[in-house]
């Protein structure tokens, strides 16, 4: 039972409550750094580290943090982890760090992270909070990667810098520029809507058939 519960918390972040596609949170880094798949993954990993670390701390301290100043406390904890991530990336992969630029410190301002602390970590025990954070962060990483891959393939004709289509391919420059980010995410959300409608229709059909069968 216990095992099941934490698995539930983990899996819901990846699909049913995906922070980007379903809750539409954390959009700013989402769109700004996804012009190539490598940047998207670096950003996703950094966010993963920050979210899991701060969920762990917030959940451990949840009984000591006074209600009135909780948001400031959460933010200081998050900012600490972001500073660590910032300097780590600078030391390990200076090139990626340079390309992401100001967007690494801006992880602090990712509303998804603060949202998880407020909605989940500050109310539940450490184990569940960490599982929830890992699920949400994986969902975020997945979303970043799919968006980054689509934009790089269409806008550059390449994935991870490897040419895919040969030289006759005319890259859609617009996909790498800012409007491409909005358009791609819009189309992905459209797909998610379509999927949800199909599922609802299917469930309605099943329910109708069952009623018919019984009556």
């Amino acid at each position, binding site marked *: 039972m216990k095992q099941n519960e934490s698995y539930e918390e983990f899996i819901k972040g990846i699909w049913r409550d995906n922070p980007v596609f379903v809750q*539409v949170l954390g959009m700013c880094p989402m769109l*700004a750094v996804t012009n190539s798949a490598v940047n998207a993954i670096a950003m996703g990993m950094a966010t993963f580290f920050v979210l899991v670390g701060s969920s762990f701390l917030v959940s451990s301290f949840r009984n000591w943090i006074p209600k009135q100043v909780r948001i*400031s406390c959460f933010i200081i904890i998050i900012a600490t982890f*972001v500073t660590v991530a910032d300097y780590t990336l600078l030391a390990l992969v200076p090139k990626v760090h340079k390309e992401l630029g*100001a967007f690494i410190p801006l992880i602090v301002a990712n*509303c998804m992270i603060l949202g998880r602390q407020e909605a989940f970590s500050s109310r539940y025990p450490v184990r569940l909070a960490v599982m929830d954070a890992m699920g949400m962060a994986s969902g975020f990483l997945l979303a970043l990667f799919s968006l980054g891959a689509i934009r790089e393939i269409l806008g550059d004709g390449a994935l991870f810098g490897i040419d895919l289509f040969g030289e006759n391919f005319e890259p859609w420059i617009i996909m790498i520029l800012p409007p491409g980010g909005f358009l791609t995410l819009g189309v992905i959300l459209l797909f998610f809507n379509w999927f949800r409608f199909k599922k609802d229709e299917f469930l309605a059909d099943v329910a109708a058939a069952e009623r018919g069968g019984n009556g």
Partner: protein
Amino acid sequence: MDNLAWIFISALLVNNFVLTYFLGLCPFLGVSNSLETSARLGLATTFVMLVTAVCAWVLNTYVLIYAPYLRLICFIVVIASTVQFIEMLIKKLSPALFRAMGIFLPLITTNCAILGLAIFATNRGYGFMEGIVYALGAGIGFTLALVLLAGLREESELSNIPRLMKGTAMNLIIAGVLSMAFMGFAGLFSSA
């Protein structure tokens, strides 16, 4: 003087925070369903930005030269306290507005446009006046984008659009088109 004007125009149009840097998207998509709310949120954000610019300058000049690694934490603490102050003020003065903005008011703190402003201004080494002008341009640019999107969304409420398109998907595509339009302003600089 010329320099200040360019900083203003650049933050307002060419490098619009929302449509070019993707900063402050959460309120951009979440609150932009009515013109009035978005105008007020825009004003509140502009005000917080001005205060942030002043605080960032003070911190950069007097405190952070001794401890640059504390920059992020210092910025965020100052911004968070400013926002909490404004929140209390609005709650006292206009409960209706407080209700209208709901969860997005505390989230101004995590509005990346505000922290982004402080970080960009620091990275570019702006002085006091430049910082203020930059904040003003960015704030008005943010309000402009918010109000534009809100206007378009209010119009689209009345028209008959496919069921699938309703909601965030369509807002993002509208934002994409707006962003394309704003790319046209890039020509302002090359002609100068």
